[in-house]
């Protein structure tokens, strides 16, 4: 008796709900793209905002709808972009190599003095509101760590020298830090490039730089002349190295009297 009734009741309830659900599923069907959910799962879920949207799920929606490119998620990189392509059944786009943040300032406290004592909120943007920042160099890093705070991946830390350090392992190249920095000290670059680079951001004239910083680029063009590959140019008083042309020969490093030309990597991992 128990046995049959149990079977009948639970089985019956099963049928009832199976049937009801089946009916309801037809009757109340709502169009929804199931791929959105799948794509959301694929995204890293850090909700970092590097894609410029509110979070990963809205990015997924827009990606599926084709409103933004499949490789919009910078932290996810090529891997995620490829798997999204797979889901959406479109051909993989060749998104460039992995990118990382690079700090373009070597003006530590010892070599680039402050012009006045700033008191108040310890935040670079806040400090910028008072006479354009306390550092004598109007382009250098203020060292209050707004970028460190902004990084959604804990890839930045404030070094003992008062400049932010990038942990290239953790950095996803999302660029959130670069956007947060009020002095545009952080550039996003290819991770595995072979080239020298110039960790200075000063577009001031050589005279001004000399007063404000012991190491900053003064735009003297010694490196331009030294480079056999025409990889170095000076724009706005600041030398820039073209990574495509640079062969990493090191001639410019010898030429620079201020010693500001560095190997990619040496400064990046400085701890």
């Amino acid at each position: 008796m128990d046995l049959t009734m149990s079977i009948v009741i639970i089985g019956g309830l099963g049928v009832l709900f199976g049937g009801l659900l089946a009916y309801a599923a037809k009757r109340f069907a709502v169009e929804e793209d199931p791929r959105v959910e799948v794509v959301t799962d694929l995204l890293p879920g850090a909700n970092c905002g590097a894609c410029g949207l509110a979070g990963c799920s809205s990015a997924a929606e827009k990606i599926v709808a084709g409103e933004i490119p499949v490789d919009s998620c910078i932290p996810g990189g090529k891997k995620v972009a490829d798997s999204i392509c797979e889901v959406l059944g479109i051909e993989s786009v060749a998104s460039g190599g992995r990118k990382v943040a690079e700090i373009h300032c070597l003006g530590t406290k010892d070599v680039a003095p402050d012009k006045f004592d700033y008191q108040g909120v310890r935040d670079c943007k806040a400090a910028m509101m008072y006479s354009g920042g306390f550092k004598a160099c109007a382009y250098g890093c203020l060292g209050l760590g707004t970028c460190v705070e902004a990084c959604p991946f804990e890839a930045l830390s404030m070094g003992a020298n008062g400049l932010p350090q990038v942990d290239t392992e953790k950095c996803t190249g999302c660029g959130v830090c670069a956007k947060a920095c009020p002095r545009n000290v952080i550039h996003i670059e290819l991770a595995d490039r072979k080239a020298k680079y110039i960790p200075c951001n000063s577009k001031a004239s050589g005279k001004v730089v000399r007063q404000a910083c012991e190491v900053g680029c003064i735009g003297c063009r010694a490196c331009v002349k030294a480079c056999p590959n025409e990889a170095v140019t000076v724009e706005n008083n600041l030398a820039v190295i073209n990574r495509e042309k640079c062969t990493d020969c090191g001639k410019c490093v010898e030429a620079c009297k201020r010693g500001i030309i560095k190997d990619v990597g040496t400064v990046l991992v400085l701890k």
Partner: protein
Amino acid sequence: MHLLAIIFVAILSNNIVLSQFLGICPYLGVTKRIDTSVGMGMAVIFVMTMAAIVTWVLDLFLLQPFGLEFLRTIAFILVIAGLVQLVEMILKKTNPALFRALGIYLPLITTNCTILGVALLNVQSGHNIIETVVYSIATGIGFTLAMVIMAGIRERLELVNMSNYLKGAAVTLVSAGILSLAFMGFKGMVTL
């Protein structure tokens, strides 16, 4: 008077979260903002009451007559899961506005132990249908109350410099503990 006592006990002195430990998962998960915790609370009140009524009827007319009380767990949960899914589908189609307000919480609710817990408590303590309805609504209100208080606390803690290790679930639990201490003050006021 008896019904009032049920309400008092269910909301305050035997609060479902703070002294009965049911529904802790959403309590930790959905109390980040006040408005979402209100939404979740409303959804719980609705589903809880509906589920309690249906399971009460089921128990009285199907399980008890055949002496099949041992099937309560399985029968109830089946009914609840089915119901929630049905409601979700129907809401989505017929009332998209309400669905947007409550719908996102519905899937969470199936696996929320308050619903099954209250359904079981109702039949175990021999409530009649009126008591069942009152008890379920009051319990839902108690749940919402606890949720909203915690959401207020957590919104404030958002603006606070505290250890990252304790942020989130850990501090929520400690706060729940102190709140639960405070709610203990209501015990002994009304006995059922």
